[in-house]
């Protein structure tokens, strides 16, 4: 009986340690406080929505907050990174690209004002791509029938599609791609979508048929204007 009780206590301890190892939203908010953010309430609301929507995990958010704590930049700039990501979460945009670019910029020692400008620009692109795809019906719950295949879109698939399309457009423009070659812009997007194993081929084909080259080119030109690319 004693052995059984010991085993039970040990199991509870082990499972408690296991739970403790995974950061919770509260750990993230505590980090925000330690960082000294001025608008904790907005950040908390935005990230709580992001955690609930599963667009960001507490683990990733905590790592980002901890990386920002190590930065010597003014708190307003450090908080700026979190605010941009928070606003994207409130606008129900995928934030994978924004979080990734924040980490990348911090690792490369890019000044935080440059990182913030970059994140704002990319957030605008994500919004434009989401609006374009939504106008074609590419939203959560859409059911696409292609021959014998029926596909119902999940949040994860829609977010991945928006992220990849926006990323392809950003890379095209930043890489010096021709802005007057709409077909090349569309090809870059379609290629990126087709190479992602999480985006069903049916959806890639649907986007190919419903989104025109001119529509993708318009977003690319908007990016170029924001980046002041010729």
């Amino acid at each position, binding site marked *: 009986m004693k052995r059984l009780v010991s085993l039970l206590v040990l199991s509870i301890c082990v499972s408690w340690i296991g739970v403790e190892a995974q950061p919770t939203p509260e750990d993230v908010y505590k980090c925000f406080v330690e960082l000294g953010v001025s608008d904790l309430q907005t950040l908390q609301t935005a990230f709580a929505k992001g955690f609930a929507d599963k667009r960001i995990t507490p683990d990733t958010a905590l790592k980002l907050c901890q990386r920002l704590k190590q930065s010597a930049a003014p708190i307003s700039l450090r908080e700026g990174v979190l605010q941009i990501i928070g606003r994207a979460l409130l606008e129900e945009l995928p934030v994978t690209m924004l979080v990734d670019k924040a*980490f990348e910029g911090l690792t*490369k020692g890019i000044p935080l004002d440059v990182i913030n400008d970059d994140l704002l620009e990319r957030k605008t692109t994500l919004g434009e791509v989401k609006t374009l795809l939504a106008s074609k019906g590419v939203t959560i719950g859409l059911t696409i029938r292609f021959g014998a295949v029926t596909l119902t879109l999940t949040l994860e698939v829609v977010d991945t599609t928006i992220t990849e399309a926006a990323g392809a457009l950003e890379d095209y423009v930043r890489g010096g791609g021709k802005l007057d070659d709409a077909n090349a812009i569309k090809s870059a997007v379609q290629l990126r979508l087709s190479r*992602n194993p999480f985006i069903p081929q049916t959806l890639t084909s649907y986007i190919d048929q419903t989104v025109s080259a001119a529509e993708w080119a318009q977003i690319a030109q908007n990016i170029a204007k924001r980046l002041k690319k010729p």
Partner: protein
Amino acid sequence: MHEHEWESLVKETLTRYADAHRDRIATLEYEIVEELPERRPNPHPRWGFALAGAVAVAAIFVIGLWVGLHLSVAPCSDPDVLCLVYPHAQSVSVAAQFTLWEPVPMNGPDRSGVWWIRLPQEIKPGRYEYGFIVDGTRWVYDPRATEFVHTFDDKINSVLYIAPRGEQP
């Protein structure tokens, strides 16, 4: 002669012999015990052998490690291995989307000055941007990559694709 007669005779002879040598038999045990330390092997030479063996094993390990790191050839033909030729670097790390851009030290250099790292097995299929950090400060792209993208301040990231298990990239 019957068997029982034979046994009686043997027993009688042994008894007589024992009576005749009673003094020697009484001290036999002590004589054996006294002789034992002289015949017991000296433990020191064995410790010496053990020590020499341990040193030899350690030396083989260190030499093997050194040979492995410096004289071996980096497994760059393996598609799951990232490589960078940088003979004069003191250290090379890889930073990538799959490490949240946290630098991870690479192995090497090998005898050709190649640094290498094996991609983690748990990495999910997909597209990943990455780059190398030489000597802790210099950002270097992978010349072996087939795709590149421009990022902050026109720094260049390399791109790799991880195919689902069992498929060619």
